[in-house]
């Protein structure tokens, strides 16, 4: 049992660190949730891609470096420690790409991945519908068979990034005659600028259009944009939801960097004798460290040929609560300036604490609410009886 990185890993870290030191913009980019900021973040993706830093774990032929999971974790640590910009390509890279690796065709991967990694095509996710949030099996949007493809109709909502993105992916009910709500769904990729698509941006809590509603009216999608078998969409979507994805949705580097910044803020702003704040800052540091080590243990298990299952639910509950507590502590440390919205001119640290707080509030909700995750922990890890909730 050790925590020693190999010489190759240390070299990789060094390489990432120097590249980031040379390239990370000194002033933060404008907010990702504005048109201008979106464009700036797209350019940043292009810069990452140019030097193969945009999707390090992908094979080289798609623009990656074939990095191991541990190297990816190292990259993420360096990335967040460097204060580099948010990733506009995140939805594609961490949600769609793993599905393409597992269920896509080589043609799809070759066509979709490089422009995804370069920021040329930015992807939005389109999971939720007004009547299908936690209960994703009750999806109603349809895919109707047509010549050479499918016609998508219905409404998707809370589609993150969709206000400015190019394409989206999601599940559609293609076989309404199926005998079970989980069956008869198809996983499809579709354009957001096609005829029949209406995108209505939605403001998140602070008013910024971080997501959108999508209204689809017989939107044509060719067969080549179906992932996996038609009718097998649920299995396709779920097979990548667990396992490694539970590990890569929110990397530890994000939280160790945030905890380090919090300690700096505390040293600058707080009375060190104020143990109430001190204890909360320490808990953020301890939590970030625990999450990092938990992830290393999981990565070691995977490297040993093990599988991860419902552990990703522990993960989700832990990081989302850590992130929220960390940002609540930061706002309290900021005193009266903790109330300022991110776009306020006087907001500390370019509004990043306020933005981070608003973002963290969504953590216990998205990617499976923490209530659902606790059910999974209880039923699958502890073996408690299913059924009543």
């Amino acid at each position, binding site marked *: 049992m050790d925590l020693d990185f190999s010489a190759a890993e240390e070299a990789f870290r060094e390489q990432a660190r120097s590249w980031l030191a040379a390239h990370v913009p000194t002033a933060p980019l404008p907010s990702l949730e504005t048109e201008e900021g979106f464009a700036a973040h797209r350019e940043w993706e292009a810069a990452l891609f140019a030097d193969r830093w945009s999707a390090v774990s992908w094979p080289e032929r798609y623009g990656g470096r074939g990095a191991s999971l541990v190297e990816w974790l190292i990259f993420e640590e360096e990335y967040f420690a460097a204060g580099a910009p948010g990733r506009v390509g995140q939805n594609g890279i961490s949600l769609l790409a793993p599905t393409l690796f597992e269920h896509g065709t080589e043609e799809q991967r070759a066509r979709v991945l490089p422009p995804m990694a370069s920021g040329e095509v930015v992807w939005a996710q389109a999971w939720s519908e007004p009547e299908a949030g936690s209960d994703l099996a009750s999806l109603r949007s349809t895919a109707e068979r047509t010549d050479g493809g499918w016609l998508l109709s219905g409404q998707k909502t809370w589609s993150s990034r969709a206000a400015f993105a190019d394409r989206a992916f999601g599940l559609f009910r293609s076989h309404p005659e199926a005998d079970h709500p989980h069956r008869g769904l198809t996983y499809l990729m579709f354009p957001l600028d096609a005829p029949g698509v209406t995108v209505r941006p*939605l403001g*998140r809590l602070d008013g910024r259009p971080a997501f959108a509603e999508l209204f689809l009216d017989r939107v044509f999608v060719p067969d080549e944009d179906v992932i996996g078998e038609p009718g097998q969409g649920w299995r396709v979507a779920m097979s990548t939801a667990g396992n490694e994805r539970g590990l890569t949705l929110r990397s530890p580097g994000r939280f160790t960097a945030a905890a380090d910044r919090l300690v700096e803020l505390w040293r600058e702003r707080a009375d060190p004798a104020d143990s109430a704040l001190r204890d909360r800052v320490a808990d953020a540091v301890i939590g970030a460290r625990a999450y990092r080590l938990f992830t290393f243990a999981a990565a070691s298990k995977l490297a040993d040929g093990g599988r991860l299952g419902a552990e990703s639910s522990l993960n989700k509950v832990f990081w989302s609560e850590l992130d929220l507590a960390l940002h609540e502590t930061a706002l*309290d440390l900021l005193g009266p300036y903790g109330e300022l919205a991110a776009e306020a001119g006087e907001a500390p640290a370019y509004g990043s604490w306020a933005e981070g707080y608003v973002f963290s509030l969504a953590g216990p909700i998205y990617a499976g609410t923490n209530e659902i995750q606790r059910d999974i922990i209880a039923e699958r890890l502890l073996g408690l009886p299913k059924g009543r909730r």
Partner: protein
Amino acid sequence: MRFLLGEAQTDFDRTLDRLLGAADTPGAIRAWASGDSSAGRALWRRLADAGVFGLAVPEAYGGVGLLPVELGVAFTQLGRHAVPGPVVETVASAVLLARLAECGERGPAKDWLPGIASGAAMVTLRAPGGGPYALDADAADAVFTVTGEEWGLSAPRDHGPAQPSLDPARRLVRPPTGGVPLAAGPSVRDAAAHAADWAAFATAAQALGAGLTLVERTVTYVRQRTQFGVPIGSFQAVKHRLADALTGLEFARPLVHGAAVALARDPGGAGAEIAAAKAAAGEAAYAAARTALQLHGAIGYTAEYDLSLWIGKARALRSAWGTPSECRARVLEGVPRGVDGP
């Protein structure tokens, strides 16, 4: 001892609830946030007509005297309906001006109190205990500032840009410096401390009201929102979270009432009671906001959905005019030495 609202107070409560329920406060907030204060102003005058601001103005200046119990009732309703504008700061300014008048400085009181009582004047205040900003100074007719021993009345239109808050209804403005000095000395300090107490009290009541609405709306939502074939309000995790939110608020409520009674009995000695109410109501309202957001899921996180207005407000009121930690320290300062019973 009768620790219950009287009939007239209950009627007043219902009147305000009806008035505000019909007033489209979410629309007024959204306009207010974008710098258009006309709807907020119109609502302000109707609140004044209903007698809200007169509750903080002595009879000699057109009010009905300082009536903390009624003021607590009113501010709970202002919170329930998320009324925008410097309501707390206007009341606190009135208290400050009235107290200075008692010390012989009658000029500013004569100039401003009648207008405050009638609703003609919307004013704001920056004073120790209330942070560096003057709330909604860009919409107000006057900004009063107290700095240490000095007190200045400045021209209302001379201020920096409004800083948006996490609560869209709150516009934080760094007050101008160099206004006309109106008074100075220990009486100002005393009056400002007094005003800060009333501000904390009114904020506590407002937070309580905001929390109650958050629970109410969430109850309505989880009764009708269906997932897995049943209303999500039938899930025990949902039930218990709402039960906890309600418990927090229902035990903050008597503290708010208790602070009102203490203010009525001894305005100078109610600090610990006010601090207890402020800490409890601020924390309970924020807990209710977290619960409301979590149980609504993504829709609660959407700016277009009205719930978001109350969520932001609960967060802001938690620290306005006294953070929970400051309030807790003050509660302990107020516990007499020696175990001698309650």
